[in-house]
């Protein structure tokens, strides 16, 4: 369970995130929706250690990750994608995915410095695993391409592969289908369902209500930094407060 308790983030006088408590269970897809500027991405940044909390706590399983640095949080089993994709544009798809394996990229320092056989084996293993994952996502054709030259949808997939490479227990997806067409989005939805079935907990941040409703068991609604509703998608979408936030927001 990924557990947020009374999490707040105040910037100057603005309460970007205000007293948010949220449970993200394993094996499920949890939705987080809300109008622009509601603080959705800020929550992801807070969870992944990219900015400090003003108040509150975050626990991953039994570990307190409230103040842990970002790389520790990753090693504790948490991965994310970025809303504004952050790929290494000049590097190939396979190299981009390989950096995602960093958590498993282990070899002794002298071996790494001198590229001794153990380090070479490690590189070869990771390259194979990256290639396998790229094939699984149907992108073999692009493995040797610079990531920056790919279409939007393909870049999003590379980001998801990179996040998955660390084999996270929890995955935070920040608008993963933005800029995709329906066919691409459906393909991703199938992948997300499979990841959840494998036991991973997913937090899905989306604008697209239909997409969220079709995937999530539970949806939380954020407005002005506060949670205003939560429950089954169908109920939440009928909630007058939610409708007001969307229409008014």
């Amino acid at each position: 369970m990924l557990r947020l308790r009374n999490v707040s983030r105040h910037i100057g006088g603005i309460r970007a995130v205000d007293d948010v408590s949220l449970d993200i269970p394993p094996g499920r897809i949890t939705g987080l929706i809300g109008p622009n500027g509601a603080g959705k991405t800020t929550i992801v940044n807070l969870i992944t250690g990219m900015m400090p909390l003003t108040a509150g706590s975050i626990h991953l399983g039994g570990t307190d990750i409230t103040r842990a640095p970002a790389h520790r949080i990753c090693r504790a089993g948490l991965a994310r994608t970025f809303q504004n994709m952050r790929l290494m544009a000049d590097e190939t798809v396979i190299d981009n995915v390989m950096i995602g394996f960093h958590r498993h990229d282990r070899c002794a320092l002298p071996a790494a410095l001198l590229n001794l056989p153990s380090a070479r084996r490690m590189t070869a293993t990771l390259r194979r695993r990256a290639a396998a994952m790229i094939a699984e996502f149907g992108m073999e054709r692009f493995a040797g391409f610079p990531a920056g030259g790919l279409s939007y949808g393909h870049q999003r997939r590379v980001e998801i592969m990179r996040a998955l490479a660390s084999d996270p227990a929890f995955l935070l997806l920040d608008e993963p289908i933005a800029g995709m067409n329906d066919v691409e989005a459906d393909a991703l939805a199938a992948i997300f369902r499979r990841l959840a079935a494998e036991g991973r907990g997913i937090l899905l941040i989306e604008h697209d209500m239909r997409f969220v409703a079709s995937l999530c068991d539970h949806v939380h609604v954020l407005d002005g930094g506060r949670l205003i509703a939560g429950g089954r998608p169908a109920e939440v979408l009928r909630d007058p407060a939610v409708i007001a936030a969307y229409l008014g927001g």
Partner: protein
Amino acid sequence: MGQWIIAYTPLVDLFLLHLGFAYAQYIVLRAGVFSLATAGLAGIGAYTAGVLAVKLGAHPALGVAAATLAGSGAALVLSLPLARLRGVYQAIATVAFVQIVYSVNLWAEPVTGGAMGLNNIPRTAGTGVLAVAALGTLYLVWAMERTRLGRAFNAIRQDEAMAATLGVDIVRHQALAFALSGAIAGLFGALEAYHAYALDPGQFAFPFLIAILSYVILGGRNSVAGPLIGTAILIILPELARPLAENRMLIYGVMLILVINFLPRGIADSLILAWRARRLARPEPAAGEP
């Protein structure tokens, strides 16, 4: 042939020494640290070796080892505060470091010879030794690139936040890059001392810093071939014609402006990217289309 070698030995030696310094600078930039400390680290190495040789009559091997350790130790200590700073601030802090090393060298006259410098250092490093050191450095940099270290450095340099969320410990990797840079700078500083008979503090001040930086900027700072190409061009260029030698600093200045504006990746990196783009030559609708 024999005469050719004799005539060009000083140039080859200069090239090999500066190649080492260029890689020391390259490694930190590669790991996303905007450090200009290489000059100071080289100075520490050179003076460690020089003082050991002149004042204590130590064996050159001991001097080289001590200089390498001193360089990496100083770099490691320096990396702690630098980890808390960003871009411009790192640059300023490291320039300050270079100035501190310079002022201390000037002041500590009984040990370092002050403004007069150190003289009568036994000359023990010939072309062979320099070549071995340069090749060793080249191998290290080339090898490292292909392992987890190179992959992590790449990620850090391009996007720190992204690298951290992928589990890369930025502080540790940058400290490692720094220590390596210091070790290489210290080593070649020592070789400089054992090669040149004499040292003076001004040698490792601002002009040195600029020369080393220029090699890496011109050659390219993301591929192993970069510093090699940059150093070769800037060392050989002044030898081609007298006016080029007389206007060395002017040429460096113009070159820095032109390269950073029009070929910001440097020669090697630009060639590699162009080559890769040609090889792919865009099959089908693949790239670009939504």
